[in-house]
């Protein structure tokens, strides 16, 4: 019974990989620069966010500052609640995205970088591909800082969009790439060289290739790597796509995983993997223990569309025009924000390939876009894959939404369903 696992005398553990600690290297690389570069007048920095092709910034030698990433730091350092409440005091509604409010609070209170603070950038570069929040938030901050902003307008790739229409959307984005070039030249006198762009894309592709190989290994039973670790280790994909530092780290992780899989070992205490889960949505950054605690129920998260989304392969050896079209396509078609029809197919595929026993859908009060269609997704998985699905209402950065007792009860109920479902099979 689930209850017994939770109180077991010898708790089941997540065994971290030998090179897990090496994540410190890319993190140090990034955080030191994010403190120093904004102070150097000759270094350009930009705020950007998920969905923006970060390679474009690296190709211009622009250092990407990442407010969402820093918001997660604030949460992990137990600062997000006070920053969110500060932003609410500034007038931002309780119903708005907690990343955004963490950032408003961080900027207004001038909190230090190690606690989730972030420097003023030279400009802002964002898209609307995932949500309204991204560009609304960045537009407000660009105005506050009085810095230029470039917003990529990505049409919505809704269910049933024809290939022809999609090509029209890509045409529109390609035109915006040229406009971005004009923006960079106008404001900063910077020109993009094709050679540098290709180099950055090569490095980005290498990083993503490694990530996809890591994901391939996660198919192994028992699972060698869980979301308890990937939620942190995917960090290089967020901000370092295009530089070397993350590549070395991923190579080591991949080597560790290969060894683990070859030995038939899993991340959970030997012989204890019972339930393989898919977790949809952003993790609870202030409560990463949640992912570890699932181990107490002999459950392990082996797939997360969220971390997978950050690592699509990049186009190489194509003409400039084809390269831009490919990048544009990637901007419109992100697993984290797939349209409902694609999302259902994608989940069905992952569930089969990763031998998933159950799905946890994070109904994130901060993120309405990711919750749209969630009820249909739940129904489709239950009906077509015949596995239990738990919708867990919470918030990724606002600890006020995390109700310890009720969440524990719901997880235990879910584990019982998983057990019953396995038995019935």
């Amino acid at each position, binding site marked *: 019974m689930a209850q017994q696992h939770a109180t077991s005398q010898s708790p089941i553990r997540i065994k971290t990989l030998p090179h897990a600690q090496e994540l410190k290297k890319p993190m140090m690389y990034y955080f030191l620069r994010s403190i120093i570069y904004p102070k150097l007048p000759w270094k350009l920095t930009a705020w950007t966010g998920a969905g923006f092709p970060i390679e474009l910034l690296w190709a211009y030698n622009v250092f990407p500052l990442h407010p969402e990433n820093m918001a997660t730091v604030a949460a992990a350092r137990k600062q997000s609640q006070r920053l969110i409440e500060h932003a609410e005091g*500034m*007038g*931002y*509604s309780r*119903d*708005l*995205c907690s990343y*955004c409010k963490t950032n408003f609070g961080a900027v207004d209170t001038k909190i230090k970088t190690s606690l989730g603070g972030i420097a003023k950038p030279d400009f802002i570069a964002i898209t*609307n591909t995932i*949500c*309204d*929040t991204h*560009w*609304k*938030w960045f*537009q*407000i901050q660009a*105005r*506050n800082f009085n810095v230029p902003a470039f*917003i990529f*307008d990505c*049409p*919505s790739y*809704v*269910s*049933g*969009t024809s290939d022809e*229409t999609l090509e*029209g*959307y890509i*045409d*529109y984005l390609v*035109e*915006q790439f040229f*406009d971005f070039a004009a923006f960079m030249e106008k404001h900063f006198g910077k020109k993009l060289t094709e050679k540098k762009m290709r180099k950055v894309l090569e490095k980005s592709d290498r990083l993503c290739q490694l990530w996809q190989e890591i994901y391939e290994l996660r198919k192994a039973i028992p699972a060698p790597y869980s979301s308890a670790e990937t939620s942190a280790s995917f960090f290089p994909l967020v901000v370092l796509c295009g530089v070397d530092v993350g590549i070395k780290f991923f190579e080591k992780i991949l080597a560790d995983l290969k060894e683990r899989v070859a030995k038939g070992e899993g991340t959970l205490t030997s012989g204890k993997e019972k339930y393989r889960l898919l977790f949809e949505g952003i993790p609870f950054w202030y409560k990463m223990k949640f992912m570890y605690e699932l181990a107490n129920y002999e459950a392990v998260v082996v797939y997360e569309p969220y971390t997978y989304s950050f690592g699509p392969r990049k186009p190489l050896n194509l003409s400039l025009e084809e390269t831009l079209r490919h990048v544009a396509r990637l901007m419109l078609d992100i697993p984290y924000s797939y*349209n*409902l*029809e694609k999302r259902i197919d994608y989940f069905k595929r992952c569930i089969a390939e990763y031998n998933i026993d159950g799905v946890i859908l994070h*109904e994130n*009060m901060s993120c*309405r*876009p990711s*919750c*749209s*269609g*969630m*009820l*249909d997704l739940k129904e489709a998985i239950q009906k077509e894959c015949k596995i239990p699905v738990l919708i867990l209402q919470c918030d990724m950065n606002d600890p006020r939404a995390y109700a310890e007792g009720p969440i524990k009860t719901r997880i235990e109920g879910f584990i019982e369903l998983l057990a019953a479902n396995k038995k019935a099979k």
Partner: protein
Amino acid sequence: MRILAYFDSSHDMPEEIIIAAGFTPMKIMGDVHQPNDPADQYLQKFFCPAARSFLTQALAQSAQWAGIVVAHGCDATNRHYDVWKRHVQTPFLYWFNSPIRNDDIAKRFYIAELKRLIAALEKHFNISISHDNLKSAIAQSNEIKIRLKTIAALRSTKDISNSEYFNTIVACLTKPKNECIDLLKQIEVEWKNRPPFPQNKKRFYLTGSDITYVEWMELLDECSIRIVRDDLSIGERYFTTTIPEGNDPLEAIAEYYLTIPRPATKISLDGRIEFIVNSLRETPVDAVLSQNLKFCEPYAYDAVPVNNELRKRGFKVLHLEREFTPLFDQQVINRISAFREML
């Protein structure tokens, strides 16, 4: 004439294309009196209640409509389309992606989107939409906009209630256009003969989320405040400017939709503020009423910088969050009344 309904979080749907196709365009407004249970099967309760009400209406009435077009706007239109596609029974459901930018690149894209919409209508309904059809649709649309602008301007000088103004615009967004023109002609005569602006009322500017039900306007009537200017889509955004009547109707439609007063769902914030400030310079008011429908994110983001800027420029601003309900919220009435007394 058959109705072609549209889900539009602002004024992004080019009604003229629907008119030129021979349909009556009808903006889906939802019904605040109906519980949202039908939509709640598919959309959680923390989604915008107006958008859930639109879905409830579509689930109940779509059989009476020739089809539905959803225009790109907020996260509700952009993400709920997929849910509509799965559950709303309609022979024609179309996604129209109006851009959030409004520069030349966006204009080219907008024209391409117009052409795709026209092609889809022509193919599905086996019709042909000519330039002449488009031009006469533009002329009809412009006549409505000009007439609405004329009568809306009377709000600050005559005794015209908030609910009368609101109902007139709703009629123009939902009824056959020729009926609207007749209605507007009558209203113009009638409103011009109204007594002057009542002395016991205060003049307000209204901004924020769109109001979709008259009861909220009645609540403002109850509070003795008069909305004499606004920047709502079911309001001035719909008629502030007219469509240029040039040679190329698609170019004219694109020009119009990309230059109307900007909603919170489109770039840019400064453009929105500028429009409000200019209106406030044209028409003196006692205060600005900024309201946000619960869970409406685009306007909740804008409310802080917009209201701060207005206050910085010396305007008095009251900001409220409102529930989606036909009932008079006593707390809201108390807040408005207290604010009114301070003026």
